[in-house]
């Protein structure tokens, strides 16, 4: 008896050997596959990197090839926050608010060294990496990154989404103090204990409980918010 030919796989999953045109997979994998190939970016473009982001979405580099061309400037309609450019202290609350407004599931790409570490702006008004404020999935190096580099970052993120790994599962870094080099003579607003411990070089961060859905515990989240203020 002749074996029927194996149907080619349509995507991730197990190819069927029965000859019928269907495919068996876990729902999670199918969803992740779909999510990773239809990212809707929200460009939080602040500086030079935003110009390179414009190059990435325009005709020459054409981000549509990777399914991420539907740029939405409303956080409520997007699931990928691309922070392109320097974030300064004055803009930090704005970035936090935009991140909070995005619906789940959401991912963050930190484009360029300014967003990742503050870059060569080690100065009085520049956030030294946006992971002081929001969790980051992929850091893209470069000042500014070349379009190829950003595309590489997006491909890396797609792999990450397909593997099910999320940044907010990591140890949250929102406890890193936003104020550096505190002057003892000036009155300081009260920090939570976690922040003070961190300031004094003790690395014990408060417990960040996770619920089954992977959400941060509401209390810890509130503490994180307090810590920032």
């Amino acid at each position: 008896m002749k074996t029927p030919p194996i149907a080619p796989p349509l995507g991730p999953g197990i190819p069927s050997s029965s000859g019928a045109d269907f495919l068996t997979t876990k729902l999670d994998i199918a969803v992740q596959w779909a999510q990773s190939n239809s990212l809707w970016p929200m460009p939080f473009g602040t500086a030079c990197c935003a110009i390179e982001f414009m190059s990435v979405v325009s005709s020459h580099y054409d981000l549509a090839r990777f399914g991420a061309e539907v740029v939405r400037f409303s956080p409520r309609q997007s699931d990928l926050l691309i922070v392109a450019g320097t974030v300064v202290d004055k803009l930090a609350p704005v970035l936090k608010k935009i991140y909070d407004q995005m619906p789940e599931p959401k991912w963050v790409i930190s484009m360029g060294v300014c967003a990742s570490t503050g870059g060569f702006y080690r100065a009085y008004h520049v956030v030294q990496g946006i992971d002081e404020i929001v969790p980051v999935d992929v850091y893209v190096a470069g000042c500014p990154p070349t379009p190829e580099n950003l595309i590489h970052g997006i491909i890396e993120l797609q792999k990450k989404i397909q593997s099910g790994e999320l940044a907010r599962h990591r140890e949250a870094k929102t406890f890193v103090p936003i104020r550096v080099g505190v002057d003892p003579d000036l009155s300081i607003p009260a920090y939570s204990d976690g922040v003070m411990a961190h300031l004094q070089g003790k690395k014990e961060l408060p417990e960040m409980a996770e619920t089954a859905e992977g959400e941060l515990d509401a209390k810890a989240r509130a503490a994180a918010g307090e810590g920032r203020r």
Partner: protein
Amino acid sequence: MSATLANPFAPPSISFGPVLEQKLAGRVTAEPRPASDIPTLVTDAATLKEAALFLRDDPAAAYDLFLDLASVDRSKLPGDLAPKDKTRFQANYILYSTKRNEHLRLRVNLPAKEPAVPSLVGVWPAANWFEREAWDLMGIRFEGHPNLQRLLTHNGFVGHALRKDYDKKQRWLCTEEDLLQTELAAKTDDPADMFETMTLNFGPSHPTTHGTLRVVMRVDGEKIVAAESECGYLHRCFEGMSETHTWVQVVPYTDRLNYCSPMINGNGYVRAVEQMLGVDVPPRAKAARTVLNEFSRIMDHLVCIAANLVDLGALTNFWYAFQPREEIYGLLEACCGARLTSSYARIGGLAKDVPENFVEWSRSLLPTIRDRMADVDGLITKNKIAWNRMRGTGVVSKEHAIAWGFTGPSLRASGVAYDVRKDKPYEMYGDVDFDVPISTDGDNLARYLVRMEEMRQSMRIIEQILARFPKGPINSDDYRVILPPKEMVYNEMEALIYHFKLVFEGVKVPPGEIYSYTEGANGELGYSLVSDGSGFPYRIKVRPPCFPLFAAFEHVIKGGMVSDAVATLGSLNIIAGELDR
């Protein structure tokens, strides 16, 4: 050595000296300056307003354009440069006369304790934001200023960041409450008005701000009855950081000022330092800088027009306009290895020679630019929809443009033909033939048309220079400012010493100061430099062309529709990196 490092001091050349002597004898004095710097008048806080009015109104002076306010904290100047009269701060007002084509610096020396001068907002409205900035970063109080609040830093900031005793790494917490919030709403909180108008927040994260600008408007239906703009959302401390780096290390920072046309900033900066040093660059470097400046100007105008048209709903132009940009990027990448942040300029020349096929490559780009521009032209310039959106909106009259301190395409679109390339030629602009396009309408359409024509003129300049692109060295042979070639370093003792000194100590700029200006893509890009003779800049103040444009934005849009405000913001071309520095 081709050039000398010492600056010859020339007697002050104040053409209206006799009138000045007659009106303000003894209270305003001229200060001796090097020939490369602009003339300087010194006065005191009590006479400032009178002197300002004289300079603005007297036909012999006629300084109608307020360009910049550069403040200096002199407390850390070494021994013989330190102020003799126990003053600490300096407020330097940079002025320009459109009628006489002359720059002037008006200086006031201020005490260490509670430095204060009368506000000049009433004399030149453009002074408004410049004074707020000086208050924010230097702590100079301007008495009688209508709204003396922090501008670049947030309200939670403590201290004045550019004072010499401020630790440049000290950051301050910013909460949402520290932002502008409902200040404007509170201002117009008239109960009778409550049901008629509403407050509309616009930015800092909004697609049409192309960056991080913020405007809070009070709207009556679609009509804007009041507006207040705010900047500082990208204040990344250019001036503060430049004080902690050597003169050459500042070049990469300048690339990130106006990131749509980075080469212009770097070339303008090194030109200022070269003027202080008295170094002349070879013709090949001048030609290369001019060509790259003009390509950068084209790139900047393309981005401005493309983004502006996207905001008006004409998305196709974006794809057309970005294609030549990509191709120009190819040329820049071949020159310096980077697309956007080029760091190509060096004091005394360029980082390295232009590629061998530079002339042919540059020439081959021009047809592409022309084709894509023709596409945009065909879609927009005679398009009725575009005309309806752009014509008569965002109108700035000639008088207003001057009063608000506009320069560049926005000023020329309002009918003033001031272009530094033409009026004070530098690099190779004096040797080429080009026109300065102007319009008298001052609206969004005029700004669009002026930019389109400027790109054509830029291509004319490029073509003329490419036709006689000089051969020879790219860098000055003054090895006190630029690294000697490697063959010399390996074979000659003297070159090795210069190499060593430059790498370890950097360029030593002689003590002094300068205001140097070039034509940026958005207007006059000025650098006020102060050197104390060490290897580090003592103070760098940039005159960003966008700053007065955005300061005036709230007045331009008043009375118009919200959608026209979007068109106006795009056509003024505010670049946040340059605005906030």
